[in-house]
């Protein structure tokens, strides 16, 4: 098996470790994993959440107490970072923070929607540098990790904290409702009877670093990543999976691995007819049909700018525990290209994991993780 990274500037390895995880399934990384392992879902019907007072199933964090959901989630993930990473690293001159969010505090309109994010980070984490914000639809989270790697490889920083976050809002729910993209039951990615997305809210944080965590905490190696545009449609997935196909190829090449050595795929899997079909076509074109794959959207809902980060954290948990989590809502093959979607949890050691994401604007992104020795 390959896996030797082509990293430069004396940076021979890049490591990812847990920073925090706030989702409808819990406020810690461990709590989330236990709930996923036991098959719980954070997606529940929320009364009168639709534009016409429909009760849409949503991944809503029920423990939030304040009026501003986004702000509270952001404060919680900052607290988790202080606990898990510590102030010394967070405010270090050689540390950068990257935020991944599609809408940040959309309820602040007509004031600036990203101002509060900068202010809260400054107050809570006291970083040495202004945070970088990536807003690239649903691939933002994966791109934040890829960008973190860029900065460390270029020796600009030793540590980059990536935070993916989005909160529930009428804006987002009404928007996806207007596109007829919401599912009236909890979303069923890759299933024959899937009808759409369940939107969710979450925040996740990953520490990307050129060294292993000093406290001996679990970490994985980051091997490489990339993005590719479909160059096809601004809101509809490519019918050939072209952008995703190209991104996975590019990521595998940068990671110096053989695609056939991939042990597990954490797919995007939104639960819409066309997205999941597109992903199955891309995986089929890469002969990845037999590789175990899941979508985690059935646990958390589709958390947009948070999705890439929280799904990489979940992938790391699966690598740590040697347990592949089932893809909630999947019962029967529902894509024209057959892929190996996990209908039950499966004990299996993962050496190489592929994470993919696709989103509006025709964006696709991917990255490859390797179990650390």
């Amino acid at each position, binding site marked *: 098996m390959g896996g030797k990274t082509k990293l430069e500037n004396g940076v021979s390895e890049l490591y990812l470790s847990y920073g925090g995880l706030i989702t409808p399934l819990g406020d810690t990384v461990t709590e989330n994993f236990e709930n996923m392992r036991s098959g719980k879902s954070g997606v529940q019907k929320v009364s009168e959440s639709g534009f016409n007072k429909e009760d849409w199933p949503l991944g809503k964090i029920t423990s939030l107490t304040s009026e501003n959901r986004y702000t509270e989630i952001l404060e919680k993930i900052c607290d988790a970072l202080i606990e898990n990473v510590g102030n010394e690293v967070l405010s270090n001159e050689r540390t950068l923070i990257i935020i991944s969010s599609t809408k940040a505090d959309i309820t602040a309109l007509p004031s*600036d929607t990203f101002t509060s994010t900068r202010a809260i980070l400054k107050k809570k984490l006291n970083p040495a540098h202004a945070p970088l914000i*990536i807003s690239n639809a649903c691939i933002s989270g994966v791109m934040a990790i890829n960008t973190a790697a860029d900065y460390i490889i*270029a020796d600009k920083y030793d540590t980059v904290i990536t935070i993916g976050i989005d909160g529930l809002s009428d804006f987002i729910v009404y928007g996806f409702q*207007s596109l007829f993209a919401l599912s009236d039951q909890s979303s069923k990615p890759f299933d024959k009877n899937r009808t759409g997305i369940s939107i969710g809210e979450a925040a996740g944080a990953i520490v990307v670093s050129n060294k292993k965590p000093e406290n001996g905490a679990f970490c994985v190696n980051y091997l490489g990543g990339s993005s590719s*545009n479909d*160059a096809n449609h*601004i809101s509809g997935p490519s019918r050939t999976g072209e952008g995703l196909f190209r991104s996975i190829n590019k990521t595998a090449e940068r990671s110096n691995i053989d695609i056939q050595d991939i042990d597990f795929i954490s797919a995007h899997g939104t639960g819409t007819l066309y997205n999941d079909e597109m992903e199955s076509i891309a995986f089929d074109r890469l002969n990845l049909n037999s590789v175990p794959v899941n979508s985690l959207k059935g646990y958390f809902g589709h958390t947009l700018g948070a999705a890439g980060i929280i799904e990489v954290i979940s992938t790391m948990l699966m690598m740590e525990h040697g347990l592949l989590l089932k893809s909630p809502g999947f019962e029967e093959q529902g894509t024209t290209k057959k892929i190996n979607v996990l209908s039950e949890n499966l004990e299996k050691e993962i050496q190489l994991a592929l994470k993919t994401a696709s989103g*509006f*604007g025709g964006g696709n992104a991917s990255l490859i993780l390797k179990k650390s020795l």
Partner: protein
Amino acid sequence: MKILVSCKISDQGVYLNGEIQQKYAKETDNWKKDIYSKLELDYPKFYKMDALAKMAFIGFELMESVCSFEHFEDNDVSLLFANRNSSYDTDLRFIESYTEKGSPGPSLFVYTLPNILTGELAIRKKWFGENIFFIQENFDAEFFIDQINFYFRKGSKACLCGWVDSANDKEECFLFVVENTEGEITPEELTKYYKQ
């Protein structure tokens, strides 16, 4: 690296490679449509775009009117964009659609993401390269140069970069293409083009 071409559209007018273009003078508030007409393009999708995507499209077409990108293959060009206000104008219009106009408008909602404009450019050129969109407080030349270096290190032959912003009747459009060749670009040089 070398700047192949740049386009700045300011209140004063259109600058290409630092030279003001009388032909594309901004004569009305409808300047995006005016310039689109003067460019004699046949691309009906333009009319469906929001203001942000229209600006990026116009800026790109103006650059292409004086510079050929045909020697780049479809994976060669990375799109690196940033702005201050994300999709501010369209966000407000989308909210208005469901608070005042009866129901949420799907065609508006799709444009409530700033990176839709990079998608529009990728579709226009059939470019499958990398795309990324950042939200920043101000145009930061050093930041762009860092990003360009990252993407060149990863194999891009060129970067199409842009700062395209629209909020509270203030519009900014600055696009430039950098090729992966010998040479340096200084932040001062880039900032000079941006400030026109």
